[in-house]
Structure formats: structure tokens, C-alpha cells
């Protein structure tokens, strides 16, 4: 509590507690807002309500088992988390994933990006009062969830990527379903833009709100669309390409204004670019081919082989009982998740379980920028600022 000078003389500020249960904090986030009337004098962010000890848990599971807990961090983009983790372990092991699996990974990860941005757009819009947009976005997301269910059996916590490739061969006809999405989505994105982009209320609530300068963004470690909305073009897919992203043609939308509106435009443009990548992936994916690396002792042999060949049986047994042990060492693998730079640091001690797994969650770092964005500004703009950062508490708290 501090004292501020007002027109009526010195007054005490009021501490308004926002959260942890609040429809607009997008999860269990608590922000203590010290207010002088409607101006936020100080904002203190309190996290940890969703801390479940995922990193500690990973030390008790084998490398293959850990994939299942990575889904649950950024729960709006589970395939991104799977990808970051699998790429890190594959780097540690030094194994090469077959191209077909890489392209399928790219396709599904880009669909995940679209799905995540749809949730962001729907929730951000509904926070600011545009309720219909929420339902339209979730209508589109439903189609994406149906595709994830088709390939992996799960709508959300897919765990579809494995060390060395994919879990299962995608079912016959799945590409046609992806084609349907490619045909219908562009018009739907046009619909959202028609509702929001030139809407006076939307402009009023997002332009000039939550401004973050490029220098502040870099020094605060912000990444993803929150950084690109402030004019810095850092996108891990372009800077440090992974999983064959360098074979795809796509642009990285960047804006200079650094306000909520700029980040909105970036994310909508990113959804369109993701569709472009999916279109290219559909062309590139060969109809047949291996979906797992040829790495005996790490990647399990096919079941038919396991039932007839002795070596395959022994490999199968050793993999499922002991697990595989990567060489001792550390790796840090970055990917571009819908929220920014998602990093997976794994330290191996030569045992079948990760010695240390750390996930560098983009929302965790981006949330630090909230203080800069809201202090000195109106309370109503705090809602827009939280929404524009696109945070997911699962990955913040882990």
C-alpha cells in the first residue's frame, strides 16, 4: 500500500486482487493490482497455483514415458510440447527422424498452432466483449480436434510423437480431412477479420493498449507474436530451423506498434501462414514410408517382427523393461510454439531416465512483461494486456 497524491490530497492506494479464479486471467493466475482510482500503480503477479511438479516427475519416468507428461504443460498446443521434447531427446541420442515423419510432424504442429491461436482469439475477443467470435473460433477448432483424434486417438493430450518419429501410422484418408480444412478455413479467417479488424470498439480497446517496446521485449526475454508485434523478427523456425522447416516457404508476420492490435494482426496472419505450411506439407508427404527412425534399441521393432525374429523380441523386451539410455551430456532444443520460444533442456547421466528436464516455457517468460505493460495504465486495459500475451498457466507453473 502506498500513498499517492490526488486532487483531493494524499490518498492510500487500494489493492485489488484479480484471480486466481477469474474468467479473464486464462487460468489460475493471481495479479495484485494496487490502484489509484482506475490507474494501476503497481501490479504484482503471483503464480504457482497450477504447479504440479512436472519436471520432478520427469526424473522418475523413462524417456518414453515422459512424453505423456509434456502434453499437459501448454495444454492448448500439446503437439508442440511433444515436438520440443522429442527433438531434444533425438538430439541427445543423435538419431535422425525419417523425412516422412518430419513432414507429418510439421503438418500437425502447424495445425496445432492454428488451434492454439483460435483459442487465443476467441478468449481474447470474449474478454473484450466480442462474444460471437469465441463461438466461431471454437467451431473451427472442433474440426482440428477431430483430426487430432483421427490420428492419435486423443483430441487434446495426443502424445502422438515418439522418440524417433510418430506413434502410429496415420489412418487412410486423413489427408482428405486436412484438405477439407485447407479449403474451408481461409474464408473463416476472413470472417473473423471482418468482425474485428476494422471494428471501432476493437480498435478502441486494442490500439495503444499494452504497449511493449522492442528493447523492453528483448531485455525481458519475450518471444513469439508478443515479440514480433514489437518489431523484432525472431522466429525459431527461421533462425534455427528444426524438423525440416527450412524446406517450407512461409513468412513471419512482424509489426512495429507493439500494442495489442499489432499482436492481434500478427497472430491472425500467422494462422494464414500456418495454412500455407500445411498446404505445402500435404504436397510433400510421401504416401508411404517409415514413420519411425531405424534405431534398434531405441525405437521398438514392428510387432510382426517381434513375434517372429529373436533379435526383435530381445530389443522389444529391453526397451520396455529397461528403456534406452542416451549418452551423458546436455542439450537445449528450441522450437517455435504458438506462444514463443519453447525450450527443452535435458541433462542425461547415462541412465534410462532424464537426470533433469527443464522446459523453458514461453508464457512464463512473457508474463514478466505484464508489469511493464500495465503499470501506469487503466485497470480495464489490464484485461486486454493479459489476453494479448496469450499465456497458458500449465506451462507457466509446470
Amino acid at each position, binding site marked *: 500500500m502506498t500513498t499517492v497524491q490526488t486532487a483531493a490530497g494524499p490518498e492510500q492506494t487500494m489493492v485489488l486482487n484479480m484471480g486466481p479464479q477469474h474468467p479473464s486471467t486464462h487460468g489460475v493466475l493471481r495479479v495484485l493490482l494496487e490502484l489509484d482510482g482506475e490507474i494501476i500503480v503497481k501490479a504484482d503477479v503471483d503464480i504457482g497455483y497450477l504447479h504440479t511438479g512436472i519436471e520432478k516427475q520427469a526424473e522418475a519416468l523413462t524417456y518414453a514415458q515422459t512424453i505423456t507428461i509434456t502434453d499437459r504443460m501448454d495444454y492448448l498446443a500439446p503437439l508442440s510440447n511433444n515436438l520440443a521434447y522429442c527433438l531434444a531427446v533425438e538430439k541427445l541420442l543423435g538419431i535422425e527422424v525419417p523425412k516422412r515423419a518430419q513432414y507429418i510432424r510439421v503438418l500437425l504442429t502447424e495445425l496445432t498452432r492454428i488451434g492454439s491461436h483460435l483459442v487465443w482469439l476467441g478468449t481474447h475477443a470474449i474478454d473484450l466483449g466480442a462474444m460471437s467470435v469465441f463461438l466461431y473460433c471454437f467451431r473451427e477448432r472442433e474440426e482440428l480436434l477431430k483430426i487430432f483424434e483421427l490420428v492419435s486417438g486423443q483430441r487434446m493430450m495426443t502424445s502422438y510423437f515418439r522418440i524417433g518419429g510418430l506413434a502410429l501410422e496415420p489412418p487412410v484418408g486423413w489427408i482428405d480431412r486436412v484438405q477439407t480444412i485447407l479449403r474451408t478455413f481461409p474464408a473463416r479467417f476472413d470472417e473473423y477479420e471482418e468482425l474485428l479488424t476494422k471494428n471501432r470498439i476493437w480498435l478502441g480497446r486494442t490500439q495503444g493498449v499494452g504497449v511493449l517496446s522492442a528493447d523492453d521485449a528483448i531485455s525481458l526475454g519475450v518471444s513469439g507474436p508478443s515479440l514480433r508485434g514489437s518489431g523484432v523478427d525472431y522466429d525459431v523456425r527461421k533462425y534455427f530451423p528444426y524438423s525440416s522447416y527450412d524446406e517450407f516457404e512461409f513468412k513471419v508476420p512482424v509489426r512495429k506498434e507493439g500494442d495489442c492490435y499489432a499482436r492481434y494482426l500478427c497472430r491472425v496472419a500467422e494462422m494464414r501462414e500456418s495454412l500455407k505450411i500445411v498446404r505445402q506439407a500435404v504436397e510433400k508427404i510421401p504416401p508411404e514410408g517409415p514413420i519411425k527412425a531405424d534405431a534398434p534399441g531405441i525405437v521398438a521393432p514392428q510387432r510382426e517382427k517381434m513375434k517372429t525374429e529373436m533379435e526383435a523380441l530381445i530389443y522389444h523386451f529391453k526397451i520396455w523393461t529397461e528403456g534406452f539410455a542416451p549418452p551423458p551430456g546436455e542439450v537445449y532444443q528450441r522450437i517455435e510454439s504458438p506462444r514463443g520460444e519453447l525450450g527443452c533442456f535435458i541433462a542425461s547421466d547415462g541412465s534410462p531416465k532424464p537426470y533433469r528436464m527443464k522446459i523453458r516455457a514461453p508464457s512464463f517468460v512473457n508474463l*514478466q512483461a505484464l508489469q511493464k505493460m500495465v503499470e501506469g495504465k487503466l485497470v480495464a486495459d489490464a484485461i486486454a494486456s493479459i489476453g494479448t500475451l496469450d499465456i497458458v498457466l500449465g506451462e507457466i507453473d509446470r
Partner: protein
Amino acid sequence: MTETSDLEQNPILAKIRNWRPAAVAGVDSFRGELTIGVYREHIRPLGEFMKSDSDLAFTYLSDVTGVDRFPIEPRFELNYHLLSLSKRERVRLRVRVSGQDPVIDSVVSVWPTANWHEREIFDLFGVRFDGHPNLKRLFLPEDWEGYPLRKDYPVEGPR
């Protein structure tokens, strides 16, 4: 694994050795990632140098990660993952901090993003950061006892 002679040619390492050879504890390259070992007392000035030098320009701190190497001493290992946006370079700085005296200078004055990373390490490992503006627990309640990510803290079950 890269030959030691190739590693010594690495321009980033050379720059640092040139600036202050006493700061470097070692160097390693694994799976294409360069790791430079740094002695604890040099971390903040080295950080300032790596950020402000125009050839290095490591203005972006991606992540600070703690690892508990119990029972090996020095027990706590801190990994600073740096990124140079202009040069598209990345490097890892590694510092070891002993279990008896788990303190190190905070780098918040160099890279403000380190604020929450250091709080997280304090919360889960118990390493203290000198000069940190707000060194409080981040995830766990303020009155929690113990540091969960230490190796001598159980995964589950009664303590």
C-alpha cells in the same frame, strides 16, 4: 565430439579468453552446442561483456536452468542459455555453485528476464542470487520448507 584444438579456435571462446582468461573454467561441445564453463565470481561482469560487446551481442537470455548434481561437489550447476539475435548465435554458460554456500550474483541487472528464472531456481533448488530485486519463492507458498528439485527431496510419499 569436436577436437579440443577446434574448440579453442571458436571465436566466442577466443573473445572471452581475450577479455578475461581467468573467467573460463573449461569448454565443451556436445551435439553442436557450445558450453563455456565460467567461474562463479565472474558471471555478472562476463554477462555484461557478452551483452555489450558488438561482436558477441548476446542481448537475449533465453533461459537459466539449475541442475542438482548431488552428491558431486560443487553441487548446483547453473546453465545460462544466451542468444545473439543479430548474429544468430547461441551459447551456454555453465557455472557451478557449492552446496555449502549456494550463492551467486544475480544477472538481473544485465538481462532483466533473469528475474523469474532466478526466483524459480531459488524456489526449487535453494540457490540464492545476490542483488536480485525480489528473491521470493515463485511457485510454492512462501512458508514452504525444503527445495523440491534437489535430488535428496523425494518424488512422492511422506517425508
